[in-house]
């Protein structure tokens, strides 16, 4: 079997990378907020499911993908507030609540899929209005660049734009300072009168809204449909990206792009007749490698730091 690299590595592969990275990136950005308040949010996966489902419901009900987006945001916000209440007020373990949310999301969407839309397994219909692509005025006329940057769905642009917004909010605004203070040293935050609970509520709510965007993207762009388990592990990839970046948006973006690229490459390779079972493992192998590499790097840095300290001691 001959594989022509020139036909695999093309501009459209990179465009596909951006597209595949988008839902993971949105969930990542949201998860960064909850993670910076000190909550390890394993419920992202379920929130993506809920977002994707209610985006479809909203789109059918209002006849507009933007209406679908609003439905998704409302649904994910409610789910996040329930999560927050159970974790913060009833003091349930965040991991357990997150897992419960994931299981609940699967069950609920399957049930409502039948109850509301009368479908089983998946739902697809001409009534379902998806987003349409955006051609960017000047860029669309520049060759090469246009293929890469123009003609994406709106949420792709929003996702990448949000990286900057999230960075600015976290590292430049008082709100972001308070979020990070709560996550890093809750006693320090309390000592100066910050209410940690309120901050955590906010972090979880923001995570929900971002997952609503990510979910809407999955069900209302390209393929306009909802199917069971539509998020397919993207919420977990987002957790990996957050972990890789230690909660910082820019390194997390890098991780998302790597995942997106692996995804896009997997799709492409499938077209070239490689066994799909092997190819589809690619994104997860990449995840494994990325996390392993970052863990090794962190450990080395820690070891070097402690060696430094020993050198400076004064006994």
């Amino acid at each position, binding site marked *: 079997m001959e594989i022509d690299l020139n036909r695999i590595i093309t501009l459209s592969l990179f465009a596909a990378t951006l597209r595949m990275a988008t839902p993971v990136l949105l969930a990542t950005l949201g998860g960064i907020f909850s993670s910076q308040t000190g909550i390890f949010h394993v419920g992202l996966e379920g929130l993506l499911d809920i977002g994707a489902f209610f985006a479809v419901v909203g789109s059918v009900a209002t006849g507009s993908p933007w209406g679908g987006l609003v439905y998704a945001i409302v649904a994910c916000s409610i789910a996040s507030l329930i999560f927050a209440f159970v974790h913060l007020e009833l003091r349930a373990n965040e991991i357990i609540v997150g897992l419960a949310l994931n299981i609940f999301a699967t069950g609920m969407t399957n049930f409502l899929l039948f109850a509301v839309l009368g479908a089983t397994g998946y739902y697809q219909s001409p009534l379902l209005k998806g987003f349409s692509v955006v051609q960017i005025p000047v860029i669309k006329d520049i060759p090469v660049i246009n293929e890469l940057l123009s003609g994406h769905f709106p949420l792709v642009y929003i996702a990448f734009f949000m990286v900057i917004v999230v960075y*600015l909010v976290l590292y*430049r*605004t*008082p709100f972001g*300072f*308070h979020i*990070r*203070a709560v996550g*890093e*040293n809750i*006693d*320090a*935050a309390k*000592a*100066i*009168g*910050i209410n940690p609970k309120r901050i955590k509520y906010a972090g979880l709510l923001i995570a929900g809204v971002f997952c609503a965007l990510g979910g809407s993207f999955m069900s209302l762009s390209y393929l306009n449909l909802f199917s069971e388990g539509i998020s397919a592990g993207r919420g977990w990839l987002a957790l990996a990206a957050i972990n890789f970046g230690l909660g910082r948006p820019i390194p997390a973006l890098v991780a998302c792009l790597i995942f997106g690229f692996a995804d896009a490459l997997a799709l492409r390779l499938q077209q070239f007749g490689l066994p799909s079972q092997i190819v589809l493992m690619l994104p997860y192998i990449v995840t494994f490698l990325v996390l392993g590499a970052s863990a090794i790097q962190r450990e080395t840095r820690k070891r070097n730091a402690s060696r430094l*300290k*020993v050198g400076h*001691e*004064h*006994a």
Partner: protein
Amino acid sequence: MAEAISVKNINKEFPGVKANQDINLSVNQGEIRAIVGENGAGKTTLMNIMYGLYQPDSGSIFIKGKEVKLHSSRAAISNGIGMVHQHFKLVPSFTLGQNIVLGMEPQRMGFVDNKRINQSVKEISEKYGLPIKVNNLARDASVGEQQRAEILKALYRGADILILDEPTAVLTDMETEELFEMLRGLAKQGKTILFISHKLREVLAVSDTTTVMRLGKIVGTVQTSETDSCQLAEMMIGRDTVGGRMRQNGVHPGEVVLELKNICVRDERNLLAVKNVNLQLHGSEVLGVAGVDGNGQEELIEAVMGLRPLLSGEVIVHGKNITHTSTRKIRESGVAYIPSDRNKSGVAIDALIWENLIASDYYRPPISAWLSLRQKEILQIAKDLIQRFQIFTPSANLQTGHLSGGNIQRLIVGRELGSERAMAVVASQPTRGIDISGTESIRRTLLEYANRGAGVLLVSADLDEVLALSDRVVVLYEGELYDAGVVDDEVRKRVGNLMTGSKEGCINDK
């Protein structure tokens, strides 16, 4: 001079402890007031009340003559009170400047204005003579710099009264000197400073007046220039010779059962916590190790028990060198261990009582039968220990966490001493936080054990306990061990001077 803050008739009771009784205190503006006292004297409780962290059961607080209610630390801050806790409350990834302004960030168009942070922090830093590198990350800053940031944090919030809880506990000598210089500068600029300390040398060096607390009460307040360390030590630990002595005098010690040679140990911060300690514990002897908490006691004991690496030195049990062996080997060679934190290191709190009772012997006969535990033997042993050591429980099958503190401690003592194999007992704070009857029975058990020929190394921050039980007393002060000799009528004074740092006679710095 005008009064800055005063408290009248403050009372505060915790379950079983009268932490503060009828406290009256008045501090003038621009004064440096030291509050000294042993562990558990009620200093920290009083400071927490003045900072709004605790509500007093009765009594009132006045700031500049006006009564205030401090329901929270927020209320205290808005009344011009700032506190620097012993454990700093900084966000590691923030710069020192950002930490100082956190919660009151200067803003420009919704964004944090780093330029103005730097400006205003530099301003107060220069005004009050507390140098810091504003852009240094908190996690990279030295301990002294972190502390200065904490002080600036209070000043930035407009504090006129600063409360410092053992500010020198974490500092090197150099840093301590610098801190004192800064405190004097602050006082000159009209700030009122209250600081808690154990170390009389430092109190004498920096304070204008000193208030001594003991057992929840104020013993007295003296002009620091008119006192010396011996007077303060006496006020701190009382005048009585040795009250409530439980040990008979004149016991003849046997041969050496536990010997420590040139022990050096590092603490978590990698500083030397135990410095060249030499010690011999004889059979039939109770050797008391007195000293204020945090002077290396924990580190020393953990190193002896193999729970913490020894930097250097040797541990010899009954002539056998057990340095650098495992904790199990150390225990098997005849050392019993009663740790200070009973719920964390003494028992597995969620395990059943019988499980904890066999925790040191489960792996060998008669309890262990290769792959299984012998339930019958275990129940026998458990029943026997429960009865002999008066552990009040309806059954050995109960979760240990349901027992009271005293019962848990008797369980530990029973497990450690019940088999009567140990030749040396290392007991750390054996009666801390335990009711009177529990304390009494544990002390009796330790003494009985010594009478049977074993050596008991009793480490306790409770001086009365050390003096009531010991034949001989040594003192740990800043990681060094000093001999205070056999317990006699003068021992209290000698120990007091050693544990407050006036070993070379009385100090008066002023």
